[in-house]
């Protein structure tokens, strides 16, 4: 047995030149081959690459898509993100449990199926969704489940199941992202300028990053370009892990050329020869097509050596597949992950533009940002700057999900009010709108006049709508559970703080909180926000902090105070074991 896979692991490692930087790819290939990566396999990898075993185990143990124990032949990952649960994911989950006779986290006796939960898989507009053997299934109903299982047992390919179709759901096309582009046009325009002039053109457009932080793109490229180093890298952040975001899915499906065009222009501007697209593991099903587009572009001379005939400008792109970790969307964690390590954020400074991938200057840009850059080179910075608002130029791709008639992706001009957006998507009786995903802000109706923009309500693209019948605080609680799951564990305020926050919040939701617990909840939330090391922890208390004032009534109605007696303490329950162990009865005691 041992020898049999040792050889195969050797071949896999060989395929990547026995390069430690490809450790993640090696582990992914091993999982693809054997279904898991055991401690023994880890030891082989370490030996072959001549690195300490802990380095390999450290990486492998971090990612949820790198199982260390054998899973069933078919792995079902049902998304339990907030919107999915609103749309019935729990019932679908029960149907799977019933049909397979196992609970979540278990494998059937015949080793045919493993049933797991996973976070948002970028399909909230067609929820509930699941990945079965990495193939996405959408709009699942409990009644579908028996047939799905029967079909798979009968040997049918998952991709041939009727539920295995991802709707594009592009509901509104704007003029920046969703417009036709003649491949190479923007690159040729860029090559007619000096790299500095390309950056100046982007500067004219006042483009800001679409990934969340809203950093001016021209400034980022300029910083990167000015670093004294012969080697620089460009990374496209296609990790799209923020719950309720799926606009990059649509862009990568419908406009991959625009993304690669933007990456190539960025490479030219900052002086990089190599670009990496970091694609979240949940989007593995997009990989084949993306590779095809890359091959076509190489064939057309839009990638590779001497691009568009320009002597000396070479640039190529490789796609790095992630393995199911939200924190890897954070740029420094993403870089660590792309280097084949566990995805823990780095200390900053130095910033990625100073020391990024392989410690060289690196610009990390969101998928949509790069699309905007390509369009700007096609149509000009001034044209772009006329769209949107003063501080938020251009359009924004919004992923809209939840309680509305037309969930999907909308390309809207920056500055649209929540009110207008709700009308556009057919939402009625809205209780709250979550802008910017779990880490964003929960907006109350009194603020529906506010605008989607960097200066007012920023969002990486996630818009989740909660109708008036939803238990809003339960949804917020699920967000916190998500952060607990996704915390990388490096720093205490986030690792322990999110759990403390969840416990206190649960107490209140269960009607066991006092006025004091509310104050404690606020205090924990503020500590987690102020003391955490990276953006994940710093925003993980937002579900509480952005509802505790604007939705104070929802908290107040659950708070009780009974002469200092805490409702969390249940004396009867605490006595139960002692009474049973000594053979006494409750009647005997007061």
């Amino acid at each position, binding site marked *: 047995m041992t020898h049999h896979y040792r050889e195969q692991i050797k071949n896999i490692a060989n395929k990547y030149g026995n390069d430690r930087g490809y450790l993640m790819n090696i582990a992914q290939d091993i999982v693809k081959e054997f279904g898991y990566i055991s401690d023994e396999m880890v030891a082989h990898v370490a030996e072959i690459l001549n690195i300490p075993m802990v380095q390999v185990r450290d990486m492998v143990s971090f990612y949820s898509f790198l199982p260390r124990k054998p899973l069933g032949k078919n792995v079902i990952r049902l998304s339990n993100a907030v919107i999915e649960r609103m749309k019935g994911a729990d019932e679908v989950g029960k149907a799977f449990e019933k049909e397979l006779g196992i609970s979540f986290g278990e494998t059937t006796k015949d080793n045919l199926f493993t049933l797991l939960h996973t976070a948002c898989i970028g399909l909230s507009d067609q929820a509930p969704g699941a990945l079965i053997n990495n193939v996405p299934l959408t709009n699942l109903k409990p009644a579908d489940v028996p047939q799905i299982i029967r079909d798979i047992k009968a040997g049918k390919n998952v991709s041939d199941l009727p539920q295995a179709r991802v709707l594009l759901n592009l509901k509104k096309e704007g003029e920046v992202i969703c417009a036709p582009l003649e491949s190479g046009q923007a690159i040729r325009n860029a090559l007619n300028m000096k790299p500095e002039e390309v950056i100046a053109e982007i500067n004219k457009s006042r483009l800001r990053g679409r990934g969340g932080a809203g950093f001016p793109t021209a400034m980022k490229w300029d910083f990167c370009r000015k670093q004294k180093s012969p080697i620089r890298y460009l990374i496209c952040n296609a990790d799209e892990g923020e719950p309720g975001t799926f606009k990059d899915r649509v862009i990568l499906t419908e406009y991959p050329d625009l993304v690669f065009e933007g990456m190539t222009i960025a490479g030219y501007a900052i002086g990089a020869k190599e670009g990496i697209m970091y694609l979240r593991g949940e989007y593995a099903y997009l990989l084949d097509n993306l590779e095809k587009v890359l091959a076509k572009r190489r064939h057309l001379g839009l990638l590779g050596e001497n691009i568009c005939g320009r002597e000396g400008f070479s640039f190529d792109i490789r796609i790095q597949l992630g393995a199911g970790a939200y924190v890897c969307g954070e740029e420094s964690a993403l870089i660590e992950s792309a280097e084949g390590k566990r995805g823990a954020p780095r200390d900053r400074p130095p910033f990625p533009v100073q020391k990024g991938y392989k410690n060289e200057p690196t610009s990390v840009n969101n998928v949509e940002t790069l699309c905007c850059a390509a369009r700007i080179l096609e149509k000009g910075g001034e044209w772009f700057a006329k769209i949107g608002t003063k501080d938020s130029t251009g359009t924004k791709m919004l992923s809209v999900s939840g309680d509305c008639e037309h969930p999907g992706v909308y390309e809207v001009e920056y500055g649209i009010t929540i009110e207008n957006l709700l009308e556009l998507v057919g939402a009625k009786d809205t209780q709250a709108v979550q802008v910017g995903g779990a880490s964003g802000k929960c907006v109350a109706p009194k603020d529906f006049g506010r605008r989607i923009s960097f200066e007012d309500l920023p969002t990486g693209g996630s818009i989740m709508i909660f109708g008036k019948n939803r238990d809003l605080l339960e949804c917020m609680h699920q967000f916190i559970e998500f952060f607990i799951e996704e915390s990388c564990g490096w720093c205490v305020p986030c690792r322990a703080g999110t759990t403390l926050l969840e416990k206190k919040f649960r107490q209140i939701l269960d009607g066991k909180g006092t006025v004091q617990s509310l104050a404690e909840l606020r205090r924990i939330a503020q500590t987690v926000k102020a003391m955490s090391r990276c953006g994940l922890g710093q925003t993980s208390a937002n579900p509480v902090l952005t509802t505790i004032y604007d939705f104070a009534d929802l908290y107040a109605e659950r708070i009780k105070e009974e002469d*200092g*007696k805490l409702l969390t303490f249940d004396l009867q329950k605490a006595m139960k074991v*002692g009474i049973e162990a000594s053979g*006494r009865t409750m009647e005997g005691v007061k």
Partner: protein
Amino acid sequence: MSKPVVATGHFTGCFGCHMSILDIDERILDLVELVEFNKSPINDIKHFTKPVDIGIIEGGISNDENAEILMEFRKHCKILVAIGACALTGGVPSMRNLVPLKECLEEAYLNGPTVKSENTGIIPNDPDIPVLLDKVYPCHEVVKIDYFLPGCPPSADTIWNALVALLKGEPLNLDYELIKYD
């Protein structure tokens, strides 16, 4: 003006914290001048006879009697101060929390090496003895606690300074040495 009323309570602890209260030496004479004592092991008053201004409690909560008396304290005391590691965290007695109660009892009364012979032990079940709780709880998990004084035990000076500050309604400034434990 009538004197402020103080009560002290002892739960699952070693009485060390109470010894520390007594350790204020001759200041105890001042204390008797300053306050009136109600329920306390020091004077052996068993039941509250009037509302109390400050309650001082030692020890964690390990059985139903502890829990009920602590709730009495909460009911009668305007301010409740937990002192010592046992009251604050469960302390040494809470080491049993690592083992399920049933196993603890079986080891102590049925299977332990000091149980005389097999099948003769029984787990005490007299209705008069308190029922052990599933684990030892810190006081603040049972009732609301207003102030905490850490230490095992907190020193006499810590307790004295805290009490005086509370009685005078002044802010409490404890010297670093008084609250440094490592």
